[in-house]
């Protein structure tokens, strides 16, 4: 008769359906009379159940899925006999420029050159403004959804360090919310309430939520690689150019610094710059915007 120590490895094999025949029967019999092994098996199963509930671990982005499916559809069904050259050609056509590629792909390069040329010669500033508008639209839509409750916060905390930690690894850029109270040096009119992820250009931007006594304010943060600040009333302050505008009934302020682009959306009273005064009373102090860096 075998003891529990002989069945230790069998618990894992049983869990992984690797136990068969006589070994399986013996193990079943042992389980029936051994509460210790049953407990151990249950513990193993709990971990497996937890992992299985999170299947798939990650979902492939839609854009990637579509590219692969398009490749599959275009690939001839008689692939067995398709010449190697044809197969290579199709695969080459369908391969997108790799995001982390060290070499440029010619179609992408030509497109980029054309876009830059058009942008420089025909419509200077149009593309930049279009990207800026797209970012503002996203910020306003996110703010509106946040206000009506359809975009609930995924992390709720008044602690900048907790909110910063939550975003770490979830957004494709690094940022840190400083302790506003320490840096502003005066009584805070607003407080941090939390944040969540927002889809932007196939990736994620960070939505940071603040609350004043009367209303909610949202701050959208994204990498300057995908979002730009442009247009509106431009006010340089503390080495940063702030862009003020009023859109869709909201006051919007955008700016870029340290590789990140910000869009602050609120219904604070007053036009653009005046709305900043609500939270940052000393506009002449170049350090007053530290809270947003």
């Amino acid at each position, binding site marked *: 008769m075998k003891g529990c120590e002989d069945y230790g490895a069998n618990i894992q094999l049983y869990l992984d359906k*690797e136990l068969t025949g006589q070994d399986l029967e013996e193990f079943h019999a042992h389980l029936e009379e051994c509460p210790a092994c049953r407990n151990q098996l249950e513990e193993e199963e709990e*971990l497996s159940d937890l992992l*299985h509930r999170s299947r798939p671990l*990650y979902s*492939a982005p839609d854009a*990637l899925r579509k590219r*692969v499916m398009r490749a599959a559809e275009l690939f001839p069904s008689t692939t067995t006999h398709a010449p190697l050259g044809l197969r290579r050609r199709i695969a080459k056509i369908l391969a997108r420029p790799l995001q*982390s590629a060290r070499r440029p792909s010619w179609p992408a390069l030509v497109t980029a050159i054309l876009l830059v040329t058009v942008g420089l010669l025909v419509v200077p500033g149009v593309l930049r403004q279009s990207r800026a508008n797209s970012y503002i639209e996203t910020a306003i839509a996110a703010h509106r959804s946040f206000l009506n409750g359809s975009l609930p916060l995924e992390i709720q905390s008044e602690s900048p360090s907790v909110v910063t930690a939550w975003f770490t690894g979830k957004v*494709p850029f690094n940022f840190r919310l400083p302790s506003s109270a320490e840096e502003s040096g005066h009584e805070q009119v607003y407080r941090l309430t939390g944040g969540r992820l927002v889809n932007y250009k196939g990736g994620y931007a960070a939505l940071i939520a603040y609350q004043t006594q009367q209303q909610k304010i949202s701050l959208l943060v994204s990498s300057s690689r995908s979002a730009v600040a442009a247009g509106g009333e431009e006010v340089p302050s503390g080495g940063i150019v702030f862009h003020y505008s009023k859109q869709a009934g909201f006051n919007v302020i955008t700016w870029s610094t340290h590789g990140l682009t910000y869009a602050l959306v609120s219904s604070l009273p007053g036009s653009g710059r005046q709305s900043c005064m609500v939270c940052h009373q000393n506009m002449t102090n170049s350090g007053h915007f530290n809270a947003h860096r």
Partner: protein
Amino acid sequence: MSWNHNGMDQANATGIEYIDGLYSYALVLTRNHAEAEDLVQETYVRALQAMGRLRAGSNMKGWLFTILRNIWFNQLRKRRNGPQMIEIEAEDGIFNSIVEPSKNSHDLYVSKMETEQVQAAIQELPLQFREIILLREYEELSYQEIAGILDCPVGTVMSRLGRARGKLRVLLSATLKGSNSSSVRGSQ
């Protein structure tokens, strides 16, 4: 032989059904969203080119995972032999597919939190443990298939898997306790 043997339809014949698994494996290996996408795409491109060499009855799933792993390790080797680059993993976050939460859906919220905890715990593991957990728990590959992909003996698969689970259990102890006290989602 081509991928559409054995009565498989065209969609199955391309291996597209494995894309989530391949993407997960790529993210587990690279811990980088952009690199993972590149890796999956490169895997399918290579597979398309090599499909004629896949024999009838071959295990396409294992084959695709092997291709992906080989590409990744070849890239690593080239990087090591080439100019050294500073890797800043934190610059590229690990994305998961965020399902827009439905209103007042507590279950969905709990489920999402749990998934994020699992993802974070797995990504904390050493590379060898991350990939073996992915291949067994998520892809349900047999020890033999895993041994084929990792190019190691079955015994190594078994022992490594045991150690990986032990470490993961420690990392997920709080989540396991939580799921015991309130079974919100139920087993699937």
